[in-house]
């Protein structure tokens, strides 16, 4: 099978049952995406597929041979951080770091959803979405952080997105 991940093409001979997550972690050496539950319940495996965030543990690699896949390794490097990666460092938006790649990939996808005007459960106005703390929290709730650095994660994302600062009920 042939894949395009982080702009690079990869070939792998894998069991047809292999998830996109296991393809990356166990066959391509891209271990930045994490496996927390393998059930689509925790979000640690979040990748961007054609710009949209997905749980890579819940999809088979074989389905994504024509897709543009971005993992945490494709967003930035320790020497050249993506703005969200830098914000997570600045705001201490993590503790153990295991959920962090998924949080950051999810945040990238989430901000794109907001830019497109997609409302969420927390949106007061379905036509005009503004990004406040409640919106960020709601939209990031598919990514569990058991260390519970949630307030700092919200701060980091708000910093990058330039969101309004109001605290909603």
């Amino acid at each position: 099978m042939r894949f395009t991940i982080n702009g690079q093409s990869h070939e792998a001979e894998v069991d047809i049952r292999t998830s996109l997550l296991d393809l990356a972690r166990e066959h391509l050496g891209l271990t930045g995406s994490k496996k927390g539950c393998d059930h689509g319940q925790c979000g640690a495996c979040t990748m961007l597929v054609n710009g949209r965030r997905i749980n890579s543990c819940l999809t088979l690699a074989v389905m994504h041979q024509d897709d543009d896949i971005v993992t945490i390794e494709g967003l930035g490097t320790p020497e050249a951080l993506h703005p969200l990666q830098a914000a997570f460092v600045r705001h201490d938006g993590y503790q153990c770091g295991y959920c962090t790649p998924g949080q950051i990939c999810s945040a990238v996808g989430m901000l794109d959803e907001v830019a497109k005007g997609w409302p969420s459960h927390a949106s007061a106005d379905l036509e005009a979405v503004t990004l406040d703390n409640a919106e960020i929290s709601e939209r990031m709730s598919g990514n569990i952080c058991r260390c519970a650095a949630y307030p700092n994660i919200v701060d980091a994302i708000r910093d990058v997105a330039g969101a309004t600062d109001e605290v909603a009920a």
Partner: protein
Amino acid sequence: MTEQAIDSGERPAILARAQQKVLGAPLPRVEGPLKVTGAATYAFEQAPAGTAYAAVVGAPAGAGRVTAIDDAAALALPGVVAVIHDDPRIPAGEGNSRAMPAQGTDRIFHHGQPVAVVVAETQAAAREGASLVRVHADPAPGRFDMETQPVRRDHKLGFLPAIEIGDVDAAIAAAPVVFDEHYATPVHFPAALEPHASTVWFDGEVLTVRSSNQVIGGARETIAKAMGLPAERVRVLAPYVGGGFGGKTGVGPEVILAAIAAERLGRPVKVALPRRDTAYLVHHRSATVQQVRIGCDHDGVITAFEHTGTAAQNDDGGFLEPIPFGSLPLYGGANRRFRTDLVRLDLPATGAVRAPGEAIGTFAVECAMDELAERLGIDPIELRRRNEPDRDPTNGKPFSTRRLTDCYDEGARRFGWPDRVPAPGSVRDGEWLVGIGMAAALRGNFTVEASASVRLGADGRATVACDMTDIGTGTYTILAQTVAEVLGLDPAQVDVRLGDTDLPRSAGSGGSFGAGSAASAAVLACEDIVVELARRMNASPDELVLADGRASADGRDATLVELLRGEAIEAMGKSSPGAQAKKTSQASHGAHFAEVAVNAVTGEVRVRRMLGVFDVGRVLNRATAANQIVGGMVWGVSYALGEAAVVDTRSGRFVNPDFGEYHVAVNADVPQIECHFIEEIDDAANQAGAKGVGELGISGAGAAVVNAIYNATGIRVRDVPVTLDTLLDGLPPV
């Protein structure tokens, strides 16, 4: 080598005189760029070439005996390399420094107990192979229901013996006001996001285990014991650990199974527990039933204080949740009773989960104090203040440092705690009922032996090394800050090496003792370096000033590089418990404040505001310490509103062993929680002056939320979590 027991309670001079002013600063984590880019590698992620995958096979019954294991179908599966079930070292459960599990037994202590391991070329083949192993069992009736099993008072389990001071019953009988209520908490999973994982290989003669583990020095000894090897032939590595919360303090059976497989096959083996298996192969916090009895006068001054409870353990386990541990020094009262009773169950082992004792014990006591305050018509903070002891009311020792009432005052001021708490159910915001609640936080402080080495290289860069783990606790960063502080360096000039048992033995991460003990050992190691630098300056160590990579004394000045003359200085430090731990009562303290809104129609609870003020001794890094405390507070919210593992009392299985149904708090469940510190360096706690941080935040946090729910609705829930069904009947008519 500077070896020092914590006897004098005096601050090390080099720390007292330090000029660099970086210790305590909210510096970003030094390993942050690796974590945010996915470059930090965890236990399953750096396997040697040719590593095989292992999958654990569990017992199909909750009690009884294994009679036969049929591995034919598994062995016939393409990709399966071996099925191992005949090794006498196969452990029935987790091992740790205090207790080893039964090994090579056919006795079933709980459902899912490991009985075999399948090794295969791929993960999929290993898991499918495990599903094809037929385990035949002779099941026995299991004891799965805590409510129906006998309660044993005369047991030897746990570190906290029963305590009886004065005559509680007589004092209660004589008290003008008597409070007596029961509380219950369910089974809690530690549920670290990184599932327990290990990669195991032989590096020559040395069994090398890269593992998700909090305390690798202990793990090394446990693995050696279980495998029948001398400790020198075991090396454990844990540079990054994806959360622990107590669940990774011991050595899980999967580690030993993988080691047996690696030994037998002569190739590296790695294993990661599927999420649902973590419920069975990792210990959990016992469910508890607790009773709080308080006798007091009409002004709320306590004369009798009793906190007792019951917790469970299986027949192979030696731990017992020390339910009243946090209550011992919390409130006054001459007559006192504390005790944890035991119920034996055939469930996976119970063990230490974040703040064993306090996490659930303070829930009961802090709800009780709230209830008592209301009954007496006294503000809940005032009731606590009236019972604030001036020395430990249980052991009579003076407190090392205790700023609890300051935490109340500062928290009340920041939160805007009113002079008079509104009557329950009286504040409404549209369809939401709004309430406030508070609670005290307390977590006992432990001192544990720890060593560290520090090397000041000829280039003026320092390296500090020990076998500590950084499980999200900030160890890398606070050790860089500590060494930078006393050697007068920019923290960026300090390299930190952790997570390798080849390095000096630390306390490991557990019981909130890691940071203080490791930082103390680093300070002591630096003392030797400072003495040597002073000698080279022809100065007394007492007059040497180190800052910004320069040393000065007596009007003279030199760079460290000049003083080093091309040669590194290396030193070891060791901090160990001493007289202070015996002479003083030590704990971290705090106060939580919460505002909740409860939907009057649906019963949905939203935590609108939450803040806490904490006394943790010296704060080593204000950002990482606050983050950890807030994380603990979120756990409190999570315990109050969601977390509960449900046991199927017919089978001994868990009904909800994954994140789909075991509900941990997510981002939308919590507001922008605030943490503030009242910093008083505690020189009796350790040389660094730092008390425990990691577990304090959870202590009392759930009670603050439950008390706020009561204030919002007038509904007192004493059996957490507070789910919708516990509130619906008591809500006002729609």
